[in-house]
Every structure is written in structure tokens, then in C-alpha cells.
């Protein structure tokens, strides 16, 4: 099958559906501070990063974790990559562009966002969205710091050329 359906429709699928719906609702409810071009770049950047992680540390010979039920690329993996993952960096960048914290405040903001992302990842581990086979939450925290900083930097570059009106 091109994209296999879940082996069992259980907690992890329900978690992905609810979190995706929730983020989509928030996406439309919260005020937008990014231009459409920036959203395109940020969204594709984060899908790319999620896939990059899955095809480098999520498969042999590294095999640090796997997502959802099995090691195949499921339909719900697509949801995870295209909707769930990129939404958090989107919110991080959107709030950043709204309040533009500088120097120490920016550092505190990134650490706070990484903390929130870790909390969400911890919940998703409990719902068996991720199964760690060598990966640790503490490593994810470091990754989130870099990813959020990269997203903010990228959004600044794009917003400078294509500002939100």
C-alpha cells in the first residue's frame, strides 16, 4: 500500500487528529503577523526538518526513534509532518514577529518555547506518537533551541523582503 492505514486506530491517531484540529483552529483564530510568503517558507522549512530527522536519526543505521505504530511511512505520518510539526514553529515565529523581543528577552522567549515544545513532545510520547529507541527528551530540547532560533532568523530575512501588511 502506498500509504498504509493505522494497524489499530488508537491513542496516537486520536492524538494526531485532535492536536492537528486544535492547531488549525488556533491558526485561524489568533492574529497573523506573517506575510503569506514567510508562512510558505517557514511551513516548508519545518516539514523539511521533520522529514530530515526521520530519514537521518529515525532509520537504520541510527534508529533512535520511530513514529506511530510501525516503521512504515503511514498516512498519519503525513498528517504529522504536514500539519502537526510545522504548527509549533509557526506560532513561535508569529508571536516573535508580533512582540519582537530583543537580546536577553529573545533568549528567554526561545527557551520558554523550547520548554513548551518539550512538554508537548512528552505528551505525544505518552500517546505513543513517538517511541524512543535511544533518543532522549533532553536531546530534543537542544534541537528545539536551534530549530526555533533558525526559524526566527529565517522569518526575519523573509519578512525584511516581504513584510506583513
Amino acid at each position: 500500500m502506498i500509504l498504509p492505514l493505522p494497524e489499530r486506530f488508537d491513542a496516537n491517531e486520536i492524538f494526531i487528529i485532535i492536536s492537528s484540529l486544535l492547531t488549525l483552529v488556533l491558526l485561524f483564530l489568533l492574529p497573523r503577523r506573517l506575510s503569506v510568503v514567510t508562512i510558505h517558507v517557514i511551513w516548508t522549512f519545518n516539514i523539511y526538518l521533520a522529514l530530515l530527522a526521520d530519514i537521518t536519526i529515525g532509520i537504520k543505521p541510527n534508529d533512535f526513534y520511530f513514529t506511530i505504530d510501525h516503521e512504515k511511512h503511514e498516512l498519519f505520518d503525513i498528517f504529522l509532518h504536514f500539519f502537526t510539526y510545522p504548527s509549533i514553529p509557526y506560532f513561535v515565529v508569529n508571536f516573535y514577529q508580533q512582540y519582537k523581543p530583543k537580546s536577553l528577552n529573545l533568549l528567554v522567549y526561545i527557551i520558554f518555547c523550547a520548554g513548551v515544545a518539550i512538554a508537548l513532545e512528552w505528551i505525544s510520547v505518552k500517546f505513543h506518537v513517538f517511541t524512543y529507541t535511544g533518543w532522549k527528551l533532553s536531546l530534543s530540547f537542544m534541537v528545539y533551541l536551534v530549530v526555533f532560533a533558525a526559524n526566527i532568523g529565517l522569518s526575519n530575512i523573509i519578512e525584511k523582503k516581504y513584510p506583513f501588511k
Partner: protein
Amino acid sequence: MVSTLTTVWLFIFLAILSFASLYVLMKKRSVAYVLASYFLSNILITNTGIIINLNLELTKQDPSSQLIFWTQKIPELSLKPALLLWSIYILFSKRTIFRKLIYLFIFQTALVSIEIYFVHINYLEWVHWNIFYGYIRYFVIILLLAIYSFYLEKRIYSDKKGEYV
């Protein structure tokens, strides 16, 4: 037989050339356009690759060492997206249809050749896969990328003009 280290150096050299060529493309197009298209091309390459290899089991690869693993990843993240982005650039250029087709065929052949090379050095095994399927795969990727690029280019143009679509 070509050694693994020679192959790694070859692909590192080609990766540097690819990123340099993308920098040139940024000057011809725009930063946002090249970045978003680069990320999407990676997303499409990875997703189709996983579906072909992992889900449909049409190809087989079992990287035994980190070196072999990264030898395959380097062109996937650099050379292949660069070839795809230049294909799209040619497609939307003012060349005649005949010249466009010739260029597209050359770029597609280069893309398929990377896989043929991996098969030749035994990093990849074609189980129920062949060159023709390879061409179809990249044709579909180019088509999807072209649709996205066309839409994104329009967005970028309207954002620059100050219109709000």
C-alpha cells in the same frame, strides 16, 4: 570498484557546486522562492523515496555503515534538489519548447543517473524498479514542484507590488 571514500568526496564536491548554483539561482529569482522550492523539492524526494523503498519495497537498501548512509544522503539533500530547481527555472524560462524538453530530459537523466550509480556500487538494489519508473518519479516531482513554484511566484510578485490577495 570505486571506494566509499572516493564516492563521499565526489558527492561533497557536487554538493558544494549544487549550493553554489542555488546561490546563483537566488540572484536570478528570489531568496524566498529558492528556499521554499528547495524545501519542497526535498519533501517530495524524501516522501516518494520512502514510499518506493519502505512501503512498496520496490527498491532495497540496507546501509551497514554511517559512511554508506551519508553517501546516499548527501546528493539527496544537495544535488537532487538543485537539479530539480534548475529544471523548474528552465521550464519557466523564455526558451523554445523543444529546447526546454531537451534540457528537462538532460536534468531528469542526471537525477536517474545518481540512482543508477548507487545501484552500480551496490548501495541500492532495484527489486521491482527500473530506469523508466525513475523517469516517471522525477517527472511527477517536477510537475508538482512546477505547480507550487507557479503559485509561489505569483504570491511573491503580488506581495512585492503591495497587493493583498
